[in-house]
Every structure is written in C-alpha cells, then in structure tokens.
C-alpha cells in the first residue's frame, strides 16, 4: 500500500520518523511535504482524490490546520489523531483517508504506532455509510 505523507517545517522531523517506520513495515511512501502547510495538505488531498492513494498523513505543530484544510474537501474525511482508539476507530467508522499528527503533542514512537494502526485498519462499511454520504452532500 502506498501512503501519502507530508509535513511543513514544524512537522518535518516527526514526518521523517514516520516515513522510516512505515518504510520498515513494507509500505510505499509518497512524500509531498512543503514548507507551507496549506500546500502540503492540498498535495495529500490531491493524491487521495486523483491519484488512487488511499491513505494520507499530514504532520505540523498541532495537527489542527491540516484538519481544517483537508476536511473542507468533498470526498475527504480527516482525523486529528492523538491516541490509539481514534487511530483505529476513525478507519472503522468514518472511512477516514487522512490523519493529522501534532509534533508538539505526540512523541515519535507513539506517532509511528498511530500511523501504522491507521494505515492497516479497514472501514467497517454497513450502517456507517449513511454518515459518509451525508458528509459528501454537505460539500
């Protein structure tokens, strides 16, 4: 599986750790980083919406700006992720394609494990799909 990964300067170091970790687990990585968090996030959104990549991870200081940017897009569900439960459940129930991580908040080791949980967990589908359809009606 190929994962789109991006950071701005504040998230660069953490992003590099996640990249190494996921490469070590056998994932392919497309690094779409950019100094400007708006462009970095848009790069990942574009990879999901137009390039057939199914998982994206964006890292900055707190994970808030990339959440605001990514979730504004039709067809995107984005999850700021700070712990284990969210990293799995947001895949299972929300079909989330992009998570954000905050380098000021979550340490490298935990971030890498959250990233892996996210990329390896599948969507439950079923009744949850009505909510995704509603999100896609909003914008």
């Amino acid at each position: 599986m190929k994962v789109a990964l991006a950071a701005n300067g504040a998230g660069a170091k953490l992003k590099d750790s996640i990249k190494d970790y996921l490469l070590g687990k056998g994932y392919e990585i497309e690094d779409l980083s950019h100094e400007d968090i708006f462009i970095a996030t848009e790069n990942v959104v574009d990879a999901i919406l137009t390039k057939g990549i199914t998982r994206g991870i964006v890292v900055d200081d707190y994970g808030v700006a990339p959440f605001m940017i990514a979730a504004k897009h039709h067809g995107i569900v984005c999850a700021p992720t700070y712990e284990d439960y969210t990293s799995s459940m947001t895949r299972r129930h929300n079909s989330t394609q992009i998570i954000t991580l905050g380098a000021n908040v979550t340490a490298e080791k935990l971030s890498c494990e959250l990233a892996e949980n996210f990329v390896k967990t599948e969507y439950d589908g079923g009744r949850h799909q009505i909510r995704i359809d509603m999100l896609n009606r909003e914008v």
Partner: protein
Amino acid sequence: MKIAIGCDHIVTDIKIKAAEFLKKQGHEVIDVGTYDFIRTHYPIYGRKVGKLVATGEADLGVCICGTGIGINNAAQKVKGVRAACVADVQTAVAAKENLNANVIGCGGRVIGIGSIEYILEAFLKAEYKPTPEKDALIAKIDGLIDDNDCIENDALFDEYLKKWEEGYYHD
C-alpha cells in the same frame, strides 16, 4: 457567550455534562441535540452547530461524538467553520490563537469530562493572535468551500434518511 453544542447518540451523557459546565460558567448554550441515546447520525448535529456558528447565531460551537472525528468533519464542511478536534488543552489554545477556530470538539469516548472541562475553559479564554500570515491562511481555508446550499437547506439529508428508513443502509 452564546455557544452551540451538539453530539451523536453515543455521548449524549457527556454532552449534557459539558453543556452544564458551560452554563455554570455563565454562557448561553444552544443544544442542537441529539437529546437521547436513540441511534441517529452525527452529520445532522455537526451541520446544525456549524450553521449556527457560520450564520453568527452562536459565537462558538462544541461538537462531541465517540471519537469526535465524524461530527467535527460535519461541522468543518460548513462554509465559515474552522473546527478543531482535540485531546489536550494546548492544541485547543493553539487552534484559537493561530487559526481563530470557532468550533471546538473532542471524542467523548476518548477523553474524560475533567479534560473536556479544562479544554473548553482554555479554548473560551484563548484569543486569536492575528498576523498577516495567519489571516492569509484563514482566508484560504474559508475559501476552500464555494457557496452551496449546505447552510440554508434544512432538508439537505432527507434523501439519505429516507433510504435509511427503507433499509438501504445495513450492516
């Protein structure tokens, strides 16, 4: 301050406690539901909170579901909303100071009511600290959604609710 608050059926009890905390702090609270534990759909309540904030009927919004992710994506997809979904005080403060977030959210199954109270209090107290760079980023975020019918069309989700009733969606 006038604060809109919403939740899904997984965390109604947590939402009630958060609303009570806000009222005790002297705020006016508009609870958009859900009001019980009967299965419903988080986009309904995320959109309602987002609409009240985007139209200025509420100053700020609070969105809680199990992880916080679903309902805050729903709020985020309303033009004019800048939602933060957090698990800690520091991120909530940064969201206000740097991005002038107008909706704060969290997962009611992720964090406890003590943490939620701390986050709400800190978020309400924090103030946006504008710079030209921050203003420009916020304008770009707000510009991502073109004008659409999401805010004024209260029948937005009717076709999906009809399909739900008909059994189209099932596990």
